[in-house]
């Protein structure tokens, strides 16, 4: 207080009267598109840390990550090491399940050169296209995503034109204009399958989010960045006829304190073959294995 001679503290009143209004103006001018810009800036910063699809790493890198962490997890990683050799990380941007599936599937085709599998999945993709049309989707809204995926399929098979190398596949999976389009393709497929089999999925979806199937697809399947749950995985696996193994790495353990690593195979109904001797259904061994840690999926490579 410098003004002790009775004069009003002018600078101070000025500060008091001007500060709140300028703050209000700031907030009023703080527009949603700026919020979105900031949001994408944060995403870009994250992108610098890990690409959409990382390099293949030995499983020891996973143990390293939990070095001073939970002993149950460390014990489980030890168990994992007996069966699995390597991990390929994906970015945790909410698309990690679809992105992991994309890379694991295309890599499998590239390495196996399985023409029959491409022919088989192409039939399923065509079926999905019809499903979306019958659900009322305008074709021009999804056709670009479909054709981009089919292009990627052809490009990993040699014989036709130039087959891309493994390195090129990694590059494409890191290129947003390819990678995000394929992720979006899977989101369309998943949404179409869920809505087609509404009665089947309804109870699961109500248990998860207490919304209608349509609302769930619109808000939790179709938008990029929305995380996947077992509903998404079941639907994608069913629609494309591709079995998927998910290995769970979490802190669960039994009462005696001994650990085992659980996995669950998502086996599409149409993919079960009948055993000639017993007549029972035999599930085919999945060629895609993903590692699930609460909130995130990466690709796992068996020994």
């Amino acid at each position, binding site marked *: 207080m410098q003004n002790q001679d009775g004069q009003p503290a002018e600078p101070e009143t000025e500060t008091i009267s001007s500060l709140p209004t300028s703050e209000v103006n700031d907030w009023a001018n703080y527009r*949603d598109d700026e919020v979105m810009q900031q949001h994408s800036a944060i995403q870009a910063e994250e992108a610098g840390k890990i690409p959409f699809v990382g390099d293949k790493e030995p499983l020891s890198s996973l143990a390293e990550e939990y070095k001073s962490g939970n002993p149950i997890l460390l014990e489980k990683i030890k168990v994992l090491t007996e069966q699995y050799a390597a991990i390929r990380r994906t970015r945790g941007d909410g698309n990690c399940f679809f992105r992991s599936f994309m890379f694991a599937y295309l890599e499998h085709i590239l390495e196996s050169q399985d023409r029959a599998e491409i022919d088989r999945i192409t039939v399923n993709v065509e079926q999905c296209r019809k499903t979306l049309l019958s659900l009322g989707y*305008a074709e*021009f*809204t999804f056709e670009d*995503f479909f054709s981009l995926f089919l292009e990627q399929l052809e490009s990993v098979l040699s014989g036709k034109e130039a087959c891309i190398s493994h390195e090129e596949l990694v590059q494409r999976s890191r290129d947003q204009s390819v990678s995000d389009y394929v992720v979006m393709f899977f989101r369309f497929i998943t*949404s179409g399958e869920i809505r087609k089999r509404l009665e089947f999925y309804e109870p699961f979806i109500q248990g998860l989010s207490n919304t209608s199937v349509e609302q769930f697809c619109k*808000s939790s399947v*179709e938008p*990029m960045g929305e995380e996947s749950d077992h509903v998404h995985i079941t639907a994608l696996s069913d629609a494309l006829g591709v079995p998927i193994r998910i290995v769970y790495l979490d802190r669960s353990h039994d009462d005696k304190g001994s650990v085992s690593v659980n996995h669950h195979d998502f086996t599409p109904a149409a993919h079960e073959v009948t055993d000639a001797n017993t007549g029972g259904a035999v599930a085919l061994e999945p060629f895609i294995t993903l590692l699930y840690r609460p909130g995130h999926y990466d690709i796992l490579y068996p020994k």
Partner: protein
Amino acid sequence: MQASRARLFKEYKEVQREKAADPDIQLVCDDSNIFKWTALVKGPSETPYEGGVFQLAFTVPEHYPLQPPQVRFLTKIFHPNVHFKTGEICLDILKNAWSPAWTLQSVCRAIIALMGHPEPDSPLNCDSGNLLRSGDIRGYQSMARMYTRLAAMPKKQ
């Protein structure tokens, strides 16, 4: 860029083809820039916006349709989810619930639906939101109707 241009061109053709199907929406692409669109939408009946015609401005981003278009009202409107000064719209599909399954045309339909079903719990226009939240439906409707007459209807001579 190329992908978004191709997609917008498809939307353009679709708009031309379906012109008659949606008489409440008139969506027009800028002559020289396919990333700029404007729309005229009719205020839905049995709402305070009935009889008004509202102009929307679309700015389409480079990564469309993976990213949503930016849309705002050019016509002044009194609505809880529209910023009174900037015309910015608070609508989930223009933000985190966007997906490429939406089109510029269906966004217009969603905005018309929002006009008829305001969400006062996420207000951009607090005065409007507060009227609705305090149950003063009449107050909200008369304010909204007044601005519709002032800003969204042709001036009577």
